[in-house]
């Protein structure tokens, strides 16, 4: 049994049981490796030696091998899981036992992994506001929709891609209120560049009791509880950031919808003119 020493850093919570999917006696999870983001240690494991090497390589900047013995298997990476003899299936990332990224290309799922791992530390991010949302990128910018739609959007990735829309893997995103952009902190580090990638925010849909046109203040009120880093930044900076975002970006209030409508509504928001509180981006 590993005993956590008092000097060990805080570990990311293991919210549910880790992934047990489809591994056999011949295919075992590799040992969990630790990465550090903010003040938190996140554990990641992979389904093969090659996959483990790929994870180690792409997260090299954040590796803290001294914490490998205590890290929990928060994320499980399954590259090229066989679906039949000689055939390989999707590349998957699990958070605990829930699939949070699925891609045909291993490189794409590894980029998702980096962003997902980064998102676990965004509650400690102090520079900009971080919000819980599912983000869909199209030619005209990124559309934010309620995070509870994310699972359906991941399942519809192929259909959305046919419309030129990409679902970002994380459910927490940093917004720059000065430039009205979503900031992808991690993805370019994974590619070796150290400049953040930025995408203009096209519109933001937040959950309301009914479909509602929102004033800027109404949008701030509706969006406040989606902020992930209020504790780290304080309520006053959070409110000010939201005012800037909601004044500049169309924010719409949408009533809860059945799962079957999540993809079509997102597609509509991302591909047609938005309406809402802000003006600059509509």
């Amino acid at each position, binding site marked *: 049994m590993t005993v956590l020493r008092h000097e060990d850093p805080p570990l990311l919570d293991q919210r549910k049981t880790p992934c047990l999917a489809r591994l056999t006696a011949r295919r075992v999870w590799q040992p969990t490796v630790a990465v550090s983001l903010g003040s938190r240690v996140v554990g990641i494991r992979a389904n093969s030696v090659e996959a483990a090497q790929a994870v180690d390589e792409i997260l090299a900047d954040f590796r803290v091998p001294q914490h490998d013995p205590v890290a929990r298997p928060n994320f499980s990476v399954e590259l090229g899981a066989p679906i039949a003899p000689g055939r390989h299936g999707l590349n998957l990332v699990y958070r605990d036992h829930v699939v949070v990224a699925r891609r045909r290309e291993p490189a794409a799922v590894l980029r998702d992994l980096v962003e997902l791992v980064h998102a676990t530390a965004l509650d400690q991010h102090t520079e900009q506001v971080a919000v819980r949302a599912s983000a869909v990128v199209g030619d005209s910018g990124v559309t934010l929709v309620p995070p509870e739609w994310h699972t359906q959007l991941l399942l519809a990735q192929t259909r959305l891609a046919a419309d030129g829309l990409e679902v970002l893997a994380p459910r927490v995103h940093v917004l720059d209120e000065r430039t009205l952009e979503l900031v992808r902190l991690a993805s370019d580090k994974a590619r070796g560049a150290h400049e953040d990638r930025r995408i203009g925010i096209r519109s933001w849909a937040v959950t309301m009791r009914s479909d509602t046109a929102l*004033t*800027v*203040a*109404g949008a*701030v*009120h509706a969006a*406040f*509880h989606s902020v992930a880093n209020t504790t780290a930044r*304080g*309520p*006053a900076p959070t*409110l*000010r950031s*939201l*005012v800037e975002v909601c*004044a500049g970006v169309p924010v719409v209030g949408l009533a809860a919808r059945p799962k079957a409508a999540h993809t079509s509504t997102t597609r509509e928001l991302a591909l047609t003119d938005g309406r809402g509180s802000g003006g600059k981006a509509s």
Partner: protein
Amino acid sequence: MSTSAGQSHQRGDGVFLRAASPAVEFVHVDGEAVVYHCDTRSLHLLNAVATTIWLMFDRPATVAETAERAGGHFGVPPESIHPDVLDLVADLARIKLLDEVTAP
């Protein structure tokens, strides 16, 4: 200084003061206010009329004094707006956006 006693906001004979930072943080945009109460961790959206009246309690005032001031602001007789101010003060005091204070 807040008083612990009484429900005078229900009668309208108390003196009230707007709760301020660090207990309360707010933004004022296009006439409306979004107010976060740090102790209760509650968030409130005040419409334009409520915001105008809440901001009038930047110094200790009674309901009658505020109805007079609000009547002038909105161009209506104070007595016609007094019941609404009384109700609003009761609501704002209940959610701790107004503190009842001792008379200066």
